[in-house]
């Protein structure tokens, strides 16, 4: 789960990370009022779940409250990577001496959280990683011992020669690590970590991504979810316990299991079609899930054919068949449907479908080919 910059900063502040004061505005007038209260230059920053906000014009420096109002007017409502900006963070602008990058991520290879730090921080850190990887220091952490001070100091000295700055940076890294573990993150980063002209360290931007598997046991973190900033059909699917990603094609896919779902999309493409979505109905089936899946898929006007590909293991194919019958009785389909079912209770599923006027095959390639042709308007 993504959370906004202002939410990540709130968490980091709670662990002692030095962060300039800031507040959220949803109207230009609010932005002006916050800037007036601070009585100094501010940054107005779009709060959306997208990288490259600055390059898209969503982050602006404002000298005066009137300026803040004007910039907020421009940013609120603008689109960044298809996401509408509903909120801006108004925060005291920092004098920037130098910019460093400090990030921590769960790494598949070492199977540990790994710190990445670089003195060449800022908006082009990906370029740094690609072209000058020697400017990044990687430090894995054994979670049983936490981040030892010597490792934190090693990173501090990698960033700064001055021992005072190195110590201050090491302290921030231990605070960041504590926040990362406590919030159940898969990623946390401070970029940039800034040295001000007066020699102080401050975190000017913060980002956190939460492991979805943590949300059940961390309700206070789960409550940070901002559904208004997500694709509505994806929110709908998540609330129905389905994994759904909207795409641009016209073959709507309903599959059980992520690997088979991806393989089904690949096969749609292989036979010359384009998938309209990724949709995994998951392991244990019930007819309700199928009803929700069909509702979400048919809401997309681009969908010209629907393809079910179900391999029953834990999933009972008769449950899926019943779901298809229930859903289409309530809302008759306006587009053709192709069903492939095999596995647990296959004979029963076929019987249910045949009795209700559907046909189904047990072969994946046949079904996909047929769905692609139907989506193209063929027979």
């Amino acid at each position, binding site marked *: 789960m993504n959370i906004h910059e202002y939410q990540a900063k709130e968490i980091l502040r709670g662990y002692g990370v030095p962060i300039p004061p800031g507040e959220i505005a949803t109207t230009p007038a609010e932005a002006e009022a916050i800037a007036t209260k601070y009585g100094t230059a501010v940054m107005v920053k779009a709060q959306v779940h997208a*990288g490259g906000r600055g390059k898209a014009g969503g982050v602006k420096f404002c000298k005066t409250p009137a300026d803040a109002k004007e910039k907020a007017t421009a940013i609120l409502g603008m689109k960044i990577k298809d996401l509408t900006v509903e909120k801006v963070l108004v925060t005291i602008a920092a004098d920037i001496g130098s910019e460093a990058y400090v*990030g*921590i*991520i*769960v*790494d*598949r*290879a070492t*199977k540990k*959280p*790994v710190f*990445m730090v670089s003195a060449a921080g800022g908006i082009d*850190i*990906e370029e740094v*990683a*690609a072209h000058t990887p020697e400017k*990044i220091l990687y430090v894995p952490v*054994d*979670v*049983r011992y936490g981040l030892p001070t010597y490792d934190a100091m090693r990173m501090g000295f990698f960033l700064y020669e001055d021992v005072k700055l190195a110590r201050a940076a090491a302290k921030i890294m231990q605070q960041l690590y504590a926040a990362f*573990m406590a919030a*159940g993150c*898969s*990623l946390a*980063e401070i*970029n940039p970590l800034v040295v001000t002209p007066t020699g102080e360290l401050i975190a000017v931007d913060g*980002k956190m*991504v939460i*492991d979805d*598997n*943590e949300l*059940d*046991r961390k309700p206070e973190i789960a409550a940070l979810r901002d559904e208004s900033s997500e694709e509505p059909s994806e929110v709908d699917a998540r609330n129905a316990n389905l994994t759904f*990603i909207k795409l641009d094609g016209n073959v709507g896919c309903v*599959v*059980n*299991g*992520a*690997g*088979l779902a*991806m*393989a089904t*999309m*690949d*096969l*749609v*493409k*292989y036979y010359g079609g384009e*998938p309209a979505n*990724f949709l995994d109905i998951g*392991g*244990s089936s019930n007819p309700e899930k199928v009803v929700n899946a069909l509702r979400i898929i048919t809401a997309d006007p681009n969908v010209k054919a629907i393809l079910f590909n179900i*391999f*029953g*293991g*834990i999933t009972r194919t008769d449950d899926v068949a019943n779901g298809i019958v229930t859903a289409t009785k309530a809302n008759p389909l306006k587009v053709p449907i192709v069903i492939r079912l*095999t*596995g647990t209770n296959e004979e029963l599923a076929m019987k249910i479908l045949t009795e209700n006027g559907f046909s189904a095959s047990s072969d*994946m*390639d046949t079904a996909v080919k047929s769905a692609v042709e139907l989506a193209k308007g063929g027979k």
Partner: protein
Amino acid sequence: MSVFIDKNTKLVIQGITGRDGSFHAKQMMEYGTQVVAGVTPGKGGQKFEGTVPIFNTVADAVKATGANTSVIYVPPPFAADAIMEAAAAGVSLVVCITEGVPVLDMTKVYPFVKERGVRLIGPNCPGLITPGEAKVGIIPGRICTPGPVGVVSRSGTLTYEVVYQLTRAGIGQTTCVGIGGDPINGTNFIDCLEAFEKDPATKAVAMMGEIGGTDEQEAAEFVKKHMKKPVVGFIAGQTAPPGRRMGHAGAIISGSAGTAAEKIDAFKAAGMGVAARPIDFVELIKARLK
């Protein structure tokens, strides 16, 4: 012959009285797996289905029955502890079916099991099956048949699809292993490839990967350097949209790695067969068994 499990596997089921655990316990018993014990805290002394003794702890179960393998069906918040309990109790193989285990839990569990020399498969995996001998997990027994092909996969239902196609074409399997798709899992492709290379009954290997990470590239490197047996690979997610990455750090740690194209290139460079579709495994494997 086979890898990891066979007819001598003595299985303890953690969470045997739960909804999923009890259902799959029966399926595994029907398949012929030696289910020697179950564990549910507070139900020690009872019997499952009138035959399988239930214990309060894995240690008790191992002591009383000599169980050497554990399979876990407990809910996600308790899965990490269940894995550590099994590893500490002295079984040599732990298979965790549970989906939704927080990844930070796994950063603690992984070194714990490694230090005890225990093999962990999963979490979030379908388990494994040695056709005709034993099944540990949830892979449907009837789609498998004994034969010469080792199967290893990151996905559940995609494994079933490929095994089903192989079986329909008359090509049997030594062992099918689902290693799971979580970022941190106990057993990776290389562990399985190494085991299949050593297993005299395995004559060829079918391997199903996915986009993301670099496990498949490393596996391809292993095939090139250390394997004499033929390997055929498939990557799911060839058409998955790019993006959805996890901020700067995600891009940094994986670089450009993780795309289907890159993984397929790695397979080709290692001299592996590449299946464009699941059905293509049949012809590619057949040609390599001759």
